[in-house]
């Protein structure tokens, strides 16, 4: 079970970003030369509503210490309602994982619009900071069984 680790711990975080808002926002942060922690590996999806909650489970199994799903603000979804569905799904999944003993700070969700490059930095800093506090994900990660 993960304990608070020393400051050497660099979490691996997988982020699912919707193409139209969050990915563009993250891109804006880049072009604006805003500096933010590099722990996040981004996977672009067309809409946050595409993200299957089992992706979260799979990411944690494969060794991600945290997962972030980010989409358009409610009302702004390029596909009208995708983010509303995502909101319901991740509320349920997050609560359930917490119930199993996975710290709630490991599964985060955010609304970041295409113009919110600065917000993107804050989101990443908060997510990374939170997970640094908790430590590496250990509960049900796939372990090399060796033999």
């Amino acid at each position, binding site marked *: 079970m993960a304990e608070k680790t020393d400051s050497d711990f660099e979490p691996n975080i997988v982020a699912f970003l919707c193409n139209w808002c969050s990915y563009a926002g993250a891109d804006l942060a880049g072009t604006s030369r805003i500096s933010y922690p590099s722990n996040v590996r981004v996977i672009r999806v067309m809409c946050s509503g595409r993200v299957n909650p089992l992706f979260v489970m799979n990411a944690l199994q494969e060794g991600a210490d945290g997962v972030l799903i980010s989409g358009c603000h409610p009302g702004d979804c390029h596909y009208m309602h995708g983010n509303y569905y995502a909101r319901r799904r991740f509320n349920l999944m997050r609560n359930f994982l917490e119930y199993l003993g996975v710290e709630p700070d490991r599964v985060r969700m955010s609304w970041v619009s295409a113009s919110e490059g600065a917000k993107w930095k804050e989101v990443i800093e908060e997510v990374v900071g939170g997970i640094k506090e908790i430590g590496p994900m250990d509960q049900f990660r*796939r372990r*090399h*069984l*060796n*033999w």
Partner: protein
Amino acid sequence: MAVKRLSKEKVADALGELSKFRLIAPAKSDDVVVFKQISDPAEACLDYGNSTVPPKKFAFPQTETLFRFVTGSPELEEKNVEEEGTTIIFGLRPCDARAMAIVDKLFAWDFDDPYYLKRRELTTLVGMACVEPPSVNCFCTSLGGSPFGTEGLDLLLTDMGDHYLVQALTDKGKKLEETLSSQLEGAAADDEKKAKEIAAEAEGKIRRSIATGGIPEKLPGLWENELWKKISAACLGCGICTFLCPTCHCFDIQDEVEELGEGRRCRMWDSCMFEEYTVHASGHNPRPTRKERTRNRINHKYSYYPDKFDVIACVGCGRCINLCPVNIDILDILDQVVDAS
């Protein structure tokens, strides 16, 4: 071979001695009896009927790595079963040991399975005779077994009240007795006689039975019989009967990638009752419904296996009857087979 005694006060000591090897004993996980590796004798629970999952998993693990591979390297790193070391399974019931002897025939049949056979070679089986049948659904005596059966065992323990009678049955058993020489004592003169009386009484306590004579010969003729539809109607197609059966041995082999470029090939239990068991790559399934799969399972155990190995692949442990969620009962099925025309 001369029998010995193990006083119940010395059991913890004996287990402590055995835990220097890889010691598998019955233990409790919450209220469930499981066979697992123990290092502390206090973990062992010898007041039990039988485990839910049979100890077959220590010769035939539910998941085992066969070899590991690395991209770009032509060398495969093969599993070395020898590294598991000497294993002692303590306290298994005679039916489960007999089941291992039955399954041995398959794994040494047209191909010597190196993993299974090596494990069997490294394992000593210390049995615990059934003074009381673990379950009302036991029927070992109908299949050539017995609550005090010795087939497949290296040592047999009998609970005599304040001590266990210990009988070594094979060279491995004798060797283990030597390891426990400080805990074992000589048996009393009439210990063996008393044990035989308890054994006879125990056999009398088995309440369910089936006359199996003629069943292997009759089954092939019942292929198109309507009884299979009736029997399988309630079946859910889960794997409980197969996974908990000590003689079931079907497996699947899959490759798993663990990291980019590295992986393993592993073997895991599979069940003929699963729909995917016979699905072809084309999508065609020669056993598309539960009726075909139930028919296959009964035929495999009671017709094909005896045909090849002269023994019915069932030891009467009763687990399938106890744990089938819909009360499909092998004895009920066999009654119908006997009655079918």
